């Protein structure tokens, strides 16, 4: 197991370098001069040239890439024109919000998706199955941002159950940071009023964000459950009089969970991509909104920073999912 983790960590390091190479290449395909970009919008020619020398932009590409890596390692991720602060600081500030949102969202998707998938499989071709199918089919088809707007319209504006957007009310003081995760911190500090407020704020964006992933998880879980329930070992368990509830919830589900895990890993990427949309709709102060605002105002360094953080986060979650997969499947566990 230890060797497996080390191997995967090496692979992840390689992938991270690949990701940085992509962002590096992207910053070089920009039609604007990178030196001019780095110098900022108000710089004159002389300043741009100074930047070119300072950042080594006159050197060969591989040297530049090396410099780029060193620079990032040292925590120098550039400066945001928009917020006039260091990109690294901005990312540290916004990442916990995005983290909370996606964790909450994938939590909803898994906790709802697996029982619904199992239900649809067990009640195959009944009204329950058909209802769930309509949910899944429309779930993948609806654009996340539109779904967000429509839930805002109905649940926030019409019914008034949830706030319209934002991380919390303007007037509320956030708890003193411990983990920088608002919900966790407010619980740790015992400020449960703030916790409740944070929770009401997170529900709508999390639901809008989780919908496509939820739909995929239900779909895959249903298909895999149906496939598994046809397997010989299920017939054997039935032949021994093991209860149907146990067969479905233990014998079949653990097998069906393997492909479902793979799907969860894949869809987590959708979710991270979706944060740019949902955070824009719900005015959620996370990395997605940060990246979008930076893109609109051609603020280059924050976009790259956000790409690296979201890509790295995706790689990290895939590592975790691989570990869970290995833990679930003894055949893989045996090989590592």
């Amino acid at each position, binding site marked *: 197991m230890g060797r497996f983790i080390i191997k995967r960590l090496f692979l992840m390091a390689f992938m991270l370098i690949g990701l940085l190479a992509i962002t590096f290449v992207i910053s070089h395909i920009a039609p604007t001069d990178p030196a001019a970009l780095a110098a900022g919008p108000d710089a004159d020619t002389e300043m741009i040239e100074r930047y070119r020398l300072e950042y080594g932009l006159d050197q060969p590409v591989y040297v530049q890439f090396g410099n780029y890596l060193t620079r990032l390692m040292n925590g120098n991720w550039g400066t945001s024109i928009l917020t006039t602060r260091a990109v690294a600081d901005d990312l540290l500030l916004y990442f916990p919000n995005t983290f909370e949102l996606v964790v909450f969202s994938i939590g909803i998707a898994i906790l709802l998706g697996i029982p619904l998938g199992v239900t649809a499989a067990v009640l195959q071709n009944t009204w329950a199955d058909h209802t769930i199918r309509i949910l899944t089919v429309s779930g993948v088809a609806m654009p996340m941002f539109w779904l967000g707007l429509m839930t805002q319209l109905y649940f926030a504006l019409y019914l008034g159950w949830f706030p319209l957007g934002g991380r919390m009310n303007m007037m509320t003081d956030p708890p003193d940071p411990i983990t920088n995760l608002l919900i966790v911190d407010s619980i740790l500090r015992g400020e449960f009023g703030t916790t409740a407020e944070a929770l009401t704020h997170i529900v709508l964006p999390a639901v809008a964000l989780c919908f496509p992933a939820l739909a995929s998880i239900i779909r895959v879980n249903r298909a895999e459950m149906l496939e598994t329930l046809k397997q010989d070992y299920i017939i054997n368990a039935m*032949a*021994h*009089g093991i209860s149907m509830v146990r067969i479905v919830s233990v014998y079949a589900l653990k097998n069906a969970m393997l492909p479902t895990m793979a799907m969860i890993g894949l869809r987590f990427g959708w979710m991270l991509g979706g944060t740019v949309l949902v955070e824009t709709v719900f005015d959620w102060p996370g990395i997605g909104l940060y990246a979008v605002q930076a893109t609109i105002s051609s603020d280059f360094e924050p976009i790259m920073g956000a790409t690296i953080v979201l890509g790295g986060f995706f790689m990290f979650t895939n590592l975790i999912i691989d570990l869970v997969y290995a833990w679930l499947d003894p055949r893989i566990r045996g090989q590592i």
Partner: protein
Amino acid sequence: MPDKPILSFIDFKLNFDTFDGVYQAIDGISFDLNPGESLGIVGETGCGKSVTAKSIMGLLPSPPAEVAGGGIWFDGRNLLKEKSSTLKSIRGNEISMIFQDPMTYLNPVFTIGKQIVDVILAHQKRGNHGRSLTSKQAFQYGMELLDKVHLPNPRRQMKSYPHELSGGMRQRVLIAMALSGQPKLLIADEPTTALDVTIQAQILELISELREQLNLSVIMITHDLGVVATVCDRVLVMYAGQIVEDASIKQLFNNPSHPYTRGLLQAVPDPAKPNKKLKGIPGALPNLLNPPIGCRFQTRCSSASEKCTRMPALNKIRTNQKVACWNVGTT
């Protein structure tokens, strides 16, 4: 007849209601199985032998399977009329089944031990053995069972996963599971087909040994007449959902009477005459969506005649031998 039969099929009919029509998988079969007897059911793929076994266990999904008549009596109860909870308590406790491919009948993601313990606990919950085992005792009992089926090092095997075991070992595990509820009847559906020849012999030997030890009745489903000769007292030959011959082992091999039985025997290589040319049976199983009227074997039978368009009954032609053929007994 010395004992009351433990299992009786009385004119049992079963259809599969498919998209294209009604597929008459079993068409009126009747037979008795006596306590302690070992009965073989032979026939080619698709003749209904596995379906017969699975109907005893109530393992056929419905739809498409649909009982179209008759009854299956086990120990004085009609299995087709019992509540599903009663059936559950019969399954594994009184009737157990082992299957063809041991590779696929064990759940790949749980240890052998967990699967055996689960089965043991399920049995004692439903059965009436008057015992109540803790899971620790169930684990102990599981190891005893593995020992009984001659699986080396039971303690270690309990902790291993199915993929770590060979085919023969897995079949032993499945037999151990089948024995855990102390059944009266063991149904073995092609238990050795997927195994190497040497392992086959070991498993058959094990089944014979257990049968004597535990006074089990056995139904052995196979297409291999060699298997039948090793373990069975009596044989049913099935063709296209019907029983065409019901004979003791001795009669079957000495006086095979139905043309289909004779054909089957001629298709078996004889080690004593290695140069003898094997004869197959020409043609294929009839389409059971629309079976031929009368004897179902007539399309492939060399001695078929006018009267074969009427259905022959299963008639006793000698002691321990019944045949369903117009040309047998009269000639």
